[in-house]
């Protein structure tokens, strides 16, 4: 799964919808194996639109789970018309993080109920066992 995908996934347990802790899922950094997919081309216009829609605190929190604590606490802002050199550096970094980073193997945990979801072969499995579904 892409790093970006973590921004859309919540715990599958319905009761957890009533808590504020079902998103983002907490990644167990020690168990996670990452891979960079460098073939994906950098597209600043697309990335600006993605940054616009993501939940930034969740990006920061998942990045920290995976060992990257370098992100600013608040969402970076860009003047739409012309991007400065500095903007481009930030955008390239975020491209590397959000789009090129693949979580190939790993675990994610709901911070409310503690249910563990596994990622195998880049595919996260959000299905619940029958007794929880």
């Amino acid at each position, binding site marked *: *799964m*892409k790093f*970006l*995908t973590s*921004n*859309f*996934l*919540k*715990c*599958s347990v*319905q009761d957890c*919808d009533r808590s504020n802790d079902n*998103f983002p899922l907490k990644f167990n950094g020690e168990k996670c194996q990452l891979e960079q997919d460098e*073939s*994906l*081309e950098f597209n600043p*216009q*697309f990335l600006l*639109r*993605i940054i*616009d*829609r993501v*939940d930034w605190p969740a990006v920061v929190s998942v990045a920290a789970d995976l060992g990257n604590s370098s992100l600013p606490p608040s969402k970076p802002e860009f003047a739409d018309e012309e991007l400065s050199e500095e903007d481009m550096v930030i955008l390239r970094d975020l491209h590397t993080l959000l*789009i090129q980073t693949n979580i190939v193997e790993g675990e994610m945990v709901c911070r409310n109920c503690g249910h563990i979801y596994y990622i*195998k*072969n880049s*595919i*996260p*499995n*959000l*299905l*619940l066992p*029958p007794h929880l*579904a």
Partner: protein
Amino acid sequence: MLPTPHVSCDYDKVYEPSEDSFLLLDALEKDRAFLSQFLGSKAALVCELGCGSGIVTTFMMQNDIPSKYAIYVPTDLNPWAIESTVSTAQRNECDQQIFSPVRMNLAHSVRSRQIDLLVFNPPYVPAESVPKVPSDLDTSPAAGQEDDSTSDWLDLALLGGDDGMVVTWKVLENLDDFLAPEGIAYVLFCARNKPLEVVKHMQLQGWKSELVEHRKAGWEVLSIYKFYR
């Protein structure tokens, strides 16, 4: 007419693209301009629920539907379907698309009100009940085993319980939670699903709904409706 993606998968475990799949492709092709305008130039989250072979998501990726700014997160219960979706996307050179399939039930693990374009070709065949999800332990690709229960995955892709609507209702009843405020859903029905009654019910709930395509396919009459606020 836009070309149909190449698909290769094991049709003992994954639903083979059929008339219903092709009608969905035609509907999305027909509405291509509408969708790009409807969703504007934001980064759209596109979720096909029950992506099966991956033909529909791949078709959207190949043709920039709804726009070139789309994030594709197809879902399926069936691990083999997820595997097929990955390989179908690869075969059709979608490597520059933002594509990240997730194994889940419908859209129940997607954060509330995030999906901009939802596409659903449900298990719509009327049946006594909706089959149970086969046990993972012996049928997942990771387990590397196969037995007769793999065909249960096909039943799950086809059988929709009462009126063939049990699974479709699970999506329609949750549509307000699944769809982004300006999102839109494309859902396929067969005549035995009584789509006119369904649409009327949805309209009473405040949804706008329009017929996009319909076609007689063998003994079935299939139709695709879009729903938005």
